[in-house]
């Protein structure tokens, strides 16, 4: 199949637009690698494999934090997958614009993350699939390379608490949360979710309060 010039142009545009974001994503990957490789984390090699296959920062940090606080694997898995449930509607939104057979669509769908989705958006719900792929590849490389660098460097770090690394988790989730508060419903769901989690911490095993907080999203059924 000959790749014609407009497609190459859009691929390159997507990649170039993603570079500033890729620097941030790469540094974010470094912090995931560091936190995973330091004591109490999941370990360096699992962290890198997770970045290669999962490619979703907030879910990976969520799994890491549930594991690090002594939660059951099933709680870590559920928390991460509930967070990634947002990729269901995001995937649906780009689906009409992806081209080719099922395998090609499957691969391109994996390159959808919040940032590549935003870069590919042309407004009014339309998307450029080639920009999506160009941006997605650059962001994926940055995420994986960042994780490897952090995982190698993280082994050299000392006590995570003395370095304040335990405060890095909530700060990161707070920063990601602020980006999600785009409506009154989102603010209400966030407050209710936090309330549910705090109320359950003394009574439920680690990870379970986070999963239970997903019920706060049900206010989407009653409030518009």
């Amino acid at each position, binding site marked *: 199949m000959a790749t014609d010039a407009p497609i190459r142009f859009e691929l390159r545009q997507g990649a170039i637009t993603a570079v500033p974001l890729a620097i*941030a994503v790469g540094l*974010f990957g470094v912090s995931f690698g560091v936190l995973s490789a330091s004591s109490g984390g*999941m370990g360096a090699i*699992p962290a890198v494999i997770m970045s290669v*296959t*999962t490619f979703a920062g*907030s879910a*990976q*940090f*969520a*799994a890491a*934090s549930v594991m690090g*606080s002594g939660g059951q*694997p099933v709680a*870590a*898995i559920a928390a*991460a*997958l*509930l*967070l*990634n*449930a947002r990729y*269901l509607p995001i*995937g*649906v*939104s*780009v*689906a009409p614009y992806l081209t080719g057979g099922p395998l090609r669509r*499957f691969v391109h*769908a*994996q390159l959808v993350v919040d940032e590549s989705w935003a870069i590919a958006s042309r407004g009014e719900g339309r998307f450029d699939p080639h920009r999506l792929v160009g941006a997605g590849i650059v962001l994926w490389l940055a995420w994986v390379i960042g994780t490897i660098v952090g995982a190698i460097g993280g082994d050299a770090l000392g006590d995570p608490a*003395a370095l*304040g690394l335990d*405060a*890095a*988790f*909530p*700060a990161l989730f*707070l*920063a990601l*949360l*602020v980006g999600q508060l785009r409506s009154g*419903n989102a603010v209400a*769901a966030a*407050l209710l*979710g*936090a309330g*549910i*989690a*705090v109320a359950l911490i003394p009574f*439920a095993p*680690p990870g379970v*309060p*986070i999963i239970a*907080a*997903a*019920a*706060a999203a049900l206010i*989407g059924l009653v409030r*518009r």
Partner: protein
Amino acid sequence: MSDAWVVVAAVGAGTIVIKAAGPVLLGGRPLPERVRSVVALLAPALLAALVATTTFGSEQQLVLDARVIGVASAGVALLFRAPVLLVVVVAAAAAALARLVGIG
């Protein structure tokens, strides 16, 4: 297989399926409005829960320690529209400093 590898495998496989579901299975059809309105609120609800549990949770107890000072500092950094990485560094530095002077 260790717990870490179980989590890595399950989260990886689950995420790949979630991302592929729309483009491969649904084609161009939209999700029902009610499903979309709930799914859109999952991320804010869960991220807020993660902020709460990682700030106040310790095993199965609610505690106030240096993490609270770190997170409050992160909140101030966010008010000034600091980039994510700087926010995280500010939080870690504030918590480390608080521990250094014997708070939390």
